[in-house]
């Protein structure tokens, strides 16, 4: 428990609340991650290639969606991010481009995180090559998160995060399609 602070600074004596003990020892995970990072330069080069591929995918997706949006009624950027099916939809139509873009990217990231949780719970075991790709993508997401912890409003980093999550979602969608095809053939 902390020493109590002055009543003026801490009038409710929150510093009197006890320390909360961690539920388990996290060191093995941290040690493994640090060793992995030290040995993983070649993996990171491959990851950079994947990230570049993800950017290309995003660019193609945005281009495709722009074509679609020109034929549809204009939507508010925030409602677009929350309501439409496509994760890239929120990039469009913003009165204050930079702030709206950051807001949209965060919204997309949140939505993708939610979808990924659902997908993970519904998908079976991934084949080995997909599993390797999944690990690479998750590793890259972790690296982007590290960088975001220092610059939380970086549009570029949020964009990279969304790209990586889109790739992960596509990975799971592919697996779900394969599983559905197998079920249909039975």
């Amino acid at each position, binding site marked *: 428990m*902390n*020493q109590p*602070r002055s009543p003026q*600074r*801490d*009038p*409710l*004596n*929150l*510093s009197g*609340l006890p*320390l*909360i*003990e*961690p*539920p*388990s020892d*996290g*060191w093995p*995970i*941290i*040690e493994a*991650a*640090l*060793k992995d*990072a*030290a040995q993983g330069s070649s993996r990171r080069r491959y990851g950079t290639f994947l990230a570049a591929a993800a950017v290309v995918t995003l660019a193609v997706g945005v281009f495709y969606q722009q074509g679609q949006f020109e034929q549809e009624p204009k939507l508010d950027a925030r409602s677009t991010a*929350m309501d439409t099916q496509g994760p890239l939809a929120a990039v469009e139509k913003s009165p204050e481009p930079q702030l709206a873009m950051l807001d949209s990217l*965060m*919204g997309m*990231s*949140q*939505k993708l*995180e*939610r979808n990924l*949780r659902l997908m993970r719970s519904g998908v079976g075991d991934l084949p080995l090559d997909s599993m390797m790709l999944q690990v690479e993508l998750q590793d890259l997401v*972790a690296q982007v*998160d*590290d960088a*975001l*912890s*220092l610059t*939380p*409003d970086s549009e570029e980093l949020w964009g990279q995060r969304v790209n990586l999550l889109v790739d992960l979602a596509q990975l799971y969608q592919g697996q779900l399609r394969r599983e559905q095809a197998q079920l249909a053939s039975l």
Partner: protein
Amino acid sequence: MKQSAFEIELDDFTLARAKRGDMAACEKIFRMFNGPAYSVSFRICQCRELAQEVTQEAFITAFRRIGQFRGDAPFWGWMRRVVINHAISALRKLPKLESVELQEHHAWEHGNEERIGLSMDLESALASLSHEDRTVVWLHDVEGYSHAEIGGMFKKTESFSKTRLSRARVKLRELIEGPTDVEDSPRKATAL
């Protein structure tokens, strides 16, 4: 007076070894700061799993970037900032649905407490605040950050921190002391 549980002095030898990538030194640092790091993460996130995740990620970041620590301020302050940045960042990444569910859950608890006229304990009252209010009151009152520093962490102004702190303290008082305007509350009835 000791202000934060983080205030643990790290010897220069261990720090130098950790900067060279010595795993034993890193583990020693982890063991020293794991408790305070988890505790502050939990106070901000109010979720054991997320707090554990945040703590682990914060240590991984800290050890990867320990070479950037210049040593012009205590190590614990740098370490604490890394943990808090990770926790705030984790909150921003939470799906909006989860935040809403959590707030609705607490709102129900809050209403229930008021209805039956009981006061909450400090722990439950703190948990019932919004993420931002709780983080601001904790960082200011317990960790000793200034309003300017807290505003900076949220990429907002100093007055954002002041407003949140004031609101959080009022809410906490209401929750802890219970309703005072209910004539026939059980507590008053007992006193009479």
